[in-house]
């Protein structure tokens, strides 16, 4: 019995074993892999993706999807910089010169508002979450294009607004072996810690698992399912906007296609990390493992000089592999559960 529970534990935490194997593989493939510079690159690559995956994990556990976050990410980055830079060529900003602190608040609020609106449409409008968020993805991206007419909004040459770029741009301190740790890495780590607390140790997280596991039962017991789902989308939008703010600080010049197609990687990260697409299963730490695995593979392939023309193929194969692993995990789970039940009988 105990060993069976241990087996389940192993199945649910498979991601860390895979991450270790992949890591060791790359160490042998490239001499540059195990360097301070590369490790800090891996961590940096995990930040924006990590924030989106954290938001998606909440949504998935409640038994929903949120496709719109990649557009919210782009919109937040664009909007945030637009608020603080001068108008006209070459910056293409709004010429509002908003206080950067206020623009940060405005950016995050916009993300939360987008998420909340999507949640309202799904719950009050009784529409399917997949379709609503797909429409959201298109509409928000379309607004970005219409708004800028395709021209990039550039954040350079406004030192008075340095605060805005701080999150994505600055290094916090140096850690031996890991290189200079950026503010973004620390912030992402902090977000994961808080999200982990919410999911594991807060009533809100417990209710999300209940909703994802058996929505009717959750409602019958008195959980306000609609309200929780609206809150989940709000959280997802907020985290996407936070990721957008972070990314704006890194790229500084925001194209209207920023983040396009990113949502597939987000889903891949969550699923590889053991978050079930059917809802009710997965942990924040697992999702973090998925994110780290994807960014490790990304940097590793880069160092191995894999042709950019093949990168997409490899990414597709990785997603496929993740699904395969997930399917096997579900099967293994069921097998070991049957073993446990049979033992009882």
């Amino acid at each position, binding site marked *: 019995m105990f060993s069976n529970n241990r087996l389940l534990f192993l199945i649910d935490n498979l991601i860390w074993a895979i991450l270790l194997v992949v890591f060791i593989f790359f160490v042998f493939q490239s001499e540059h892999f195990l360097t301070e510079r590369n490790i800090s690159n891996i961590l940096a690559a995990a930040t924006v993706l990590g924030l989106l995956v954290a938001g998606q994990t909440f949504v998935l556990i409640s038994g929903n999807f949120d496709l719109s976050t990649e557009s919210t990410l782009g919109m937040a980055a664009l909007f945030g910089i637009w608020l603080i830079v001068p108008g006209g060529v070459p910056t293409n900003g709004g010429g509002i010169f908003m206080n950067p602190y206020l623009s940060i608040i405005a950016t995050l609020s916009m993300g939360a508002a987008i998420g909340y609106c999507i949640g309202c449409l799904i719950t009050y409008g009784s529409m399917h979450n997949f379709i609503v968020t797909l429409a959201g993805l298109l509409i928000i991206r379309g607004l970005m294009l219409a708004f800028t007419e395709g021209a990039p909004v550039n954040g350079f040459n406004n030192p008075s607004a340095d605060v805005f770029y701080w999150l994505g741009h600055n290094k916090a301190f140096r850690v031996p072996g890991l290189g200079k740790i950026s503010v973004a890495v620390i912030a992402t780590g902090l977000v994961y810690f808080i999200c982990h607390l919410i999911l594991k*140790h807060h009533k809100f997280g417990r209710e999300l*698992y209940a909703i994802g596991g058996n929505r009717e*039962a959750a409602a019958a*017991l*008195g959980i*306000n399912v609609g309200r929780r789902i609206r809150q989940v989308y709000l959280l997802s939008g907020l985290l996407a906007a936070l990721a957008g703010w972070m990314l704006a600080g890194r790229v500084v010049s925001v194209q209207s296609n920023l983040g396009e197609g990113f949502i597939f990687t987000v889903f891949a990260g969550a699923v590889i990390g053991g978050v079930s697409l059917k809802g*009710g299963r997965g942990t924040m730490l697992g999702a973090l493992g998925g994110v780290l695995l994807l960014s490790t593979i990304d940097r590793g392939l880069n160092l191995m000089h894999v042709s950019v023309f093949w990168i997409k193929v490899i990414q597709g194969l990785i997603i496929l592999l993740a699904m395969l692993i997930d399917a096997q995990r579900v099967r293994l789970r069921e097998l070991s*559960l049957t073993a446990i*039940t049979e033992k009882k009988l």
Partner: protein
Amino acid sequence: MKILELKNITKNFGAIHALQGVDLAISPGEAVGLMGDNGAGKSTLMKIVAGNFSPSNGEIFIEGKKTFFSNPLDARNHGIEIVYQDLALCDNLTAAANVFLVRELMSGFGFFSRLKHSAMNDRAAELFEELKSETRPKDLVEQMSGGQRQAVALARTRLSNPKLVLLDEPTAAISVRQVAGVLARIKQLKETGHAVILVSHRMPDVFAVCDRVVVLRRGKKIADKPILKTSTEEVTGLITGAIETA
């Protein structure tokens, strides 16, 4: 004093009249068997008492006071516990998490309070022991047998000291030995002054533990008799419609 009094309860789902003017009263220490064919309105009536539905018409009195339940939590706060027909369990959560769902033990203030995992596990273990179940609080519900799942749902009703316990088909999906356990549990509830409403298809169960039997047919109450003054034949006739009314 009646624990629960329902007056003229009516419930319509669109054009379907699920309940038409049902009256029901129950005193402390009393067990009422609620019987009827499929679609007679038993579960609907239970869900109205448990706060899942609000009646289209009619009044609910708890200990003489007119009451309105806006949600299931409201009904529980008024001392009404229910075990749903499908048990309302989340397979992906542990037994303890299911027992305490929506009523988690927490420490801290307001939003910043955290779940007390070990306190909930310990309390759940005690409850399972009281129910003489081998269920372990940390096991996932998906790993459990029918009887253990039943125990988890029953344990929920023991979190508070309820005035009234509603059991919707508690013996439908469990083994013979476990049925005896559930019936013993109902007798125990009666002895400690709790009222019980038992919804069941199984005539022997109702006759073994209930003091009164109420029969619903097509949304109407057609009989409300003490068990001692009726027989399984008469109740069967009332349920099927062979006997018009009692």
